């Protein structure tokens, strides 16, 4: 079947890698695609919670690698979509339980099973990150519109290039148009100027995301949520559709830009 393998990573923790992975996987499944999500955050697993599948775990990623189960046995079927599966991370082990070549081997096996493999990477730039990007055909770097997240994204983009997995595409998560207008947040253009990679989408800040994370029902399933719409658009872009960016009302007028410029001292 020759699936496409996409790794979602960030460098910094808490920017929304897991939320993005779950939502993109569900959005692709909504479009009738076969999808396998892989949580590679060994020891700190939570993709299962976000997808509402934590009670169904029997085997995990490390069990597959160490031969305690077959691939199919560790694939948990989603409650809503028949063709969406999760391979959870092991919770009681650490990143050294896997090697990048294990992941490449697993990736090759998964390719035969599905259309898409979406890998949720751990935070950081060490072993766990290298494991997560080893099998990837494409890398999505998630960042938030704040200075530290953008700097970590920059570091990760450099490492992805160094591993010859580039060029990565950028997902800006939790953009708050109101804060941008008040000059309290970096705007998308500032981030793109710095990171100089292609944008795959902008997801606005949306309280619904927290609710849906806690209830295990990814926000793409909420028809009216703006964040959900943004994730659906990103999934369509992954499929190769040309989808214009959502109008998030953050186009700044000149005076806002000017006042922000003076506040920041032009730096």
């Amino acid at each position, binding site marked *: 079947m020759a699936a496409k393998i996409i790794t979602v990573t960030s460098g910094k923790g808490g920017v929304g890698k897991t939320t993005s992975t779950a939502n993109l996987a569900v959005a692709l499944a909504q479009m009738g695609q076969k999808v396998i999500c892989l949580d590679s955050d060994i020891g700190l697993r939570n993709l299962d919670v976000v997808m509402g599948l934590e009670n169904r775990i029997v085997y995990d990623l490390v069990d597959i690698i160490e031969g305690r189960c077959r691939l199919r046995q560790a694939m948990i079927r989603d409650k809503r979509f028949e063709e969406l599966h999760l391979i959870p991370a092991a919770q009681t082990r650490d990143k050294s339980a896997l090697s990048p070549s294990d992941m490449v081997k697993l990736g090759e096996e998964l390719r035969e099973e599905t259309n898409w493999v979406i890998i949720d990477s751990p935070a950081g*730039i060490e072993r766990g990150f290298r494991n997560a990007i080893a099998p990837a055909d494409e890398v999505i770097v998630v960042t938030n519109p704040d*200075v530290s997240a953008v*700097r*970590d994204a*920059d*570091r990760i*983009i*450099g*490492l992805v*290039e160094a591993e010859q997995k580039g060029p990565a595409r950028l997902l800006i998560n939790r953009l708050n148009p109101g804060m941008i207008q008040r000059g309290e947040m970096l705007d998308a253009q500032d981030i793109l*100027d*710095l990171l*100089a990679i292609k944008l795959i989408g902008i997801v606005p800040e949306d309280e619904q995301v927290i609710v849906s994370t806690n209830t295990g029902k990814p926000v793409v399933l909420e028809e009216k949520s703006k964040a959900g719409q943004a994730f659906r658009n990103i999934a369509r872009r992954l499929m190769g559709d040309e989808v214009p960016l959502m109008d998030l009302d953050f186009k700044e007028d000149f005076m806002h830009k000017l006042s922000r*410029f*003076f506040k920041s*001292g*032009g*730096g």
Partner: protein
Amino acid sequence: MHAKMKKDAFPIKGFREGLLITLSEGDWSKVLNSLLKQIDDRQAFFEGAQVAIDVNERSLSAAEVSKLRSLLADRQVTLFALLSRSAATETVAETLGLSTHKSVLKQSSKDLPRALYDGENALLIRKTLRSGVSVKFNGSVIVEGDVNPGAEILAGGSIYVWGTLRGNAQAGLQDLRNAVIVALDLQSSNLCIADTHYQESKLKIKIKKRAEIAFLDGDALKIMDWDQYKRLE
């Protein structure tokens, strides 16, 4: 901090191997007298010191260097190196058994990989330097791309960024005071030339992006439009 202290005629810097005194331009006998006065004024500080003297472009004869050495010796000061960009002075100093290479003054934290010297060689980097990347080169560094926050360049010579400089740039690390930092869009205040850091934490507001240069003007690191700087020269 030293505003109330009498200002030294010549800047002095301490290295593991000894003191480096950088002399100014001007009439040699006057410069020599100011130097001797500076040493006499702070006799206790200089007594027993090993010094290297940087005479910049100045061309000195063997007799002058020899006299300098004996005048210093009279004051219990040992001249061990004479740094200069004049080939004639270098030859003279070498003949008299003095070091002439700046590498005798190693700054322990800033040892650069061995490479050729003084602008004859430059490193060309044809990509953006992203966060976490450190480039160290004992010569000039040219970047065809941006230097992002969290990236650093440590150069023995000058730094030229054909793009936006937002990261940390340190030029002239082995005390090359005429090293410069040039960028098409200079957006970093994290700049250092020789041992002098840029003092302002914020950059001036720019209405229009234009190339800028950071250079040492006396003891201060200044930033100026490239066009303006070129007209000064």
